[in-house]
């Protein structure tokens, strides 16, 4: 022991010497290498907010349904001390908003959290409801190092909850101290259908902690799956479904969702693709590569093997047209309808993906039975002469492809096929015209949608209030681009 002390002293002495030498002879380094350090305050709320902005609680956007009246403190309830945070979760039909949630922000420039391993707090509920989300790192700006833990089960007595920090060394200046979101409890069914009831929960002793009892980090990307996909030069794809599982002091596993910036991603062949710190994979060349990730030095379960055969050839660019001659649903050549939804309705098995290939957005529908493209409002296409669709078959056997129009009628409301004033009809493209791996431009005369639909429309829809363009197939796969009405 004495020896060790001695060595320590010697080490310290020589360290000091080194520092003196450094500061003495290397002015440039010491002038420039001054790193700002930020306070390492651990407490967020004990009996009052600690070092938070004057607003304390910053709600999610009320326009999205966040209830700004539901947050407060309670001087009659506390786990320790004399006050706690009180959250009155609204029922789903509350006129002030159907859920409560928001963030706490550090009032300064952020905190140094590198010395902590977890966010922790005590909570209890008026009933044994589930809080949808707790976490930290959300600052309503970059959210660069956000961490989310989903669905924590409340007890009617106080319980301690922890949110492990995936890699504390990243958090040298973090402003997002706490984030939560909670909606009503559904005691009838688990479908969000307006029958959820409100309840109250309390949070106390909210702080960052250096717990030595959280361990066994097991990160995952792509939900831990080893995916194999084909890609095209010029396209991008995100590393998705990130997770970090820890073993808690209770022996239970806790899985949190970390932001991509906690990970170090890598590509085994950067001539084919590379990944940035936000998890964006950019495909730049032909060949194969495998995308993997590490979190705090631990290899993540899951990977993506990319086979890149070449560049994707886009569909022929549509001709320039006067804006009055086009009603565009989905094309980079024209101004499109507002808020296009690539699947306003769809079958269960279809896989839908949009890709941006050198500035040209396409949508793929793999294993398609039916899908409906929808948008805000309805369009009067009665003045148009044709509907154009560029379609590329990407599966091989016996394709089928029908395009349908659905009109919401004068009431501009989706009445379905049962009663109301909605109409619809389809046009089937002969399968011989579909070519695997090649674009086919199809121009369907506006009055040719005469076929009855499987959903129950009789065919030949009205054209004044068109709200959906539907695509129907037999499980074949397609790439789609340039869906628009035009007149010659």
């Amino acid at each position, binding site marked *: *022991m004495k020896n*060790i002390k001695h060595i320590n002293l010697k080490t310290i002495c020589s360290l000091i010497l080194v520092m003196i030498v450094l500061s003495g002879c290397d002015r440039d380094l010491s002038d420039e290498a001054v790193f700002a350090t930020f306070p390492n305050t651990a407490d967020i709320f004990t009996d009052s907010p600690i070092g938070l902005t004057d607003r304390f609680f910053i709600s999610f956007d009320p326009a999205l349904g966040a209830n700004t009246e539901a947050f407060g403190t309670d001087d009659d309830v506390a786990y320790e001390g004399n006050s706690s945070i009180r959250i009155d979760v609204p029922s789903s039909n509350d006129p002030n908003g159907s859920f409560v949630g928001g963030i706490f922000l550090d009032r300064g420039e952020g905190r140094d959290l590198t010395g902590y391993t977890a966010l922790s707090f005590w909570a209890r509920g008026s009933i044994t409801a589930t809080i949808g989300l707790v976490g930290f790192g959300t600052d309503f700006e970059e959210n660069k190092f956000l961490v989310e833990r989903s669905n924590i089960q409340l007890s009617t007595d106080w319980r301690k909850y922890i949110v492990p920090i995936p890699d504390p060394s990243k958090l040298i200046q973090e402003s997002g101290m706490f984030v939560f979101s909670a909606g009503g409890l559904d005691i009838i069914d688990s479908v969000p259908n307006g029958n959820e009831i409100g309840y109250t929960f309390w949070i106390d002793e909210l702080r960052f902690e250096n*717990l*030595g*009892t959280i361990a066994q980090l*097991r990160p995952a990307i792509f939900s831990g799956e080893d995916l194999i996909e084909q890609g095209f030069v010029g396209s991008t794809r995100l590393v998705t479904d990130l997770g970090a599982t820890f073993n808690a*002091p*209770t*022996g239970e596993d806790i899985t949190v969702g970390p932001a991509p910036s906690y990970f170090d991603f890598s590509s085994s062949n950067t001539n084919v693709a590379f990944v940035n710190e936000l998890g964006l994979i950019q495909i730049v060349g032909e060949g194969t590569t495998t995308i993997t990730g590490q979190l705090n030095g631990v290899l993540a379960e899951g990977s993506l093997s990319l086979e890149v055969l070449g560049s994707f050839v886009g569909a022929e660019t549509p001709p320039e047209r006067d804006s009055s001659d086009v009603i565009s649903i989905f094309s980079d050549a024209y101004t499109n309808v507002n808020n296009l939804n690539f699947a306003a309705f769809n079958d269960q098995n279809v896989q839908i993906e949009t890709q941006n290939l050198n500035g040209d957005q396409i949508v793929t529908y793999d294993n398609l039975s039916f899908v409906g493209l929808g948008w805000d409002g309805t369009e009067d296409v009665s003045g148009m002469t044709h509907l154009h669709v560029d379609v590329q078959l990407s599966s091989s056997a016996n394709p089928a492809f029908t395009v349908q129009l659905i009109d919401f009628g004068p009431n501009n409301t989706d009445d379905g096929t049962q009663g109301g004033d909605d109409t619809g009809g389809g046009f089937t493209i002969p399968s011989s015209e579909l070519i695997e791996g090649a674009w086919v431009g199809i121009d369907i005369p506006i009055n040719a949608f005469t076929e009855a639909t499987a959903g129950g429309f009789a065919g030949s829809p009205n054209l004044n209030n068109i709200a959906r363009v539907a695509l129907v197939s037999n499980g074949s796969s397609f790439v789609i681009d340039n869906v628009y009405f035009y007149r010659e």
Partner: protein
Amino acid sequence: MNNNLNRIIGSLFISCLFMMGCGTDDTQTVATFNNLVAEDNFDVDGEIDTSFWNFDIGDGSEQGIPGWGNNELQFYTDRSENVTVENGFLLITAQEEDFNGAQYTSARLQTKGKIQQRYGRFEARIRLPFGQGMWPAFWLLGDDSDGSVSPQIGEIDIMENTGDAPTEIFGTVHGPGYSGENSISKKYTLVNSRVDTGFHIYGIEWGPDYINYYVDNVLYYQVTPEDVDEETDGEGEWVFNDRQFYIILNLAVGGNLPGSPNEETVFPQTMVVDYVRVYTNGIN
């Protein structure tokens, strides 16, 4: 006896001060028996010292106790997949695999007929595995070469842990009138630390009419004949003054105590042993 305890408490106090001064350290001075008589530091890679250790093989059926008496799920082997020495550590590894009718394999080493003595200090430095169903142990059994059987031979469990409680270990004695579920036991919870993230020292100091249990620099438990009397309403018999005991190191999977592994249990899991040491106090 009192003297002895005072000495231990005294040195505990000193060691606490000392530890706080120096930061974390693996050594501890809770124990007072310092006459080293046997040790295995696992210094030769790939080799288990058979002058020290025997292997117990199988699922206990050959010994007449299928499931090793606790409905344990593993089949013990001496294959390197289950037991080896690497980088100066003994590795006992539980694997999930179909093997001779069992779902799991692991290893159990003991020193019967090789390293055994009455009284002394038995200590090991170990990093434990984690996960539901893991049941590592460092323990002593009484020599049964005179034909005696359990529980008459006695059992001193220096350290047991279940993988679903990564901050807790427990020390236990078994004997006539206090065996199995009725054994006499105490739990110790590590302070802001876990059994699976670093090494901890688990040991006992055992003399006439007492067994002292320690973890690192903390003496947490003493068992005496009076405790056995109290716990068993006078029915239990102190069997720790009459015979030699030998050492067992094993990693069981499943069984009555920990329950079976579940979906979250990660395999393989390894119990890492830095050393095993045996001391006397030069008196008993």
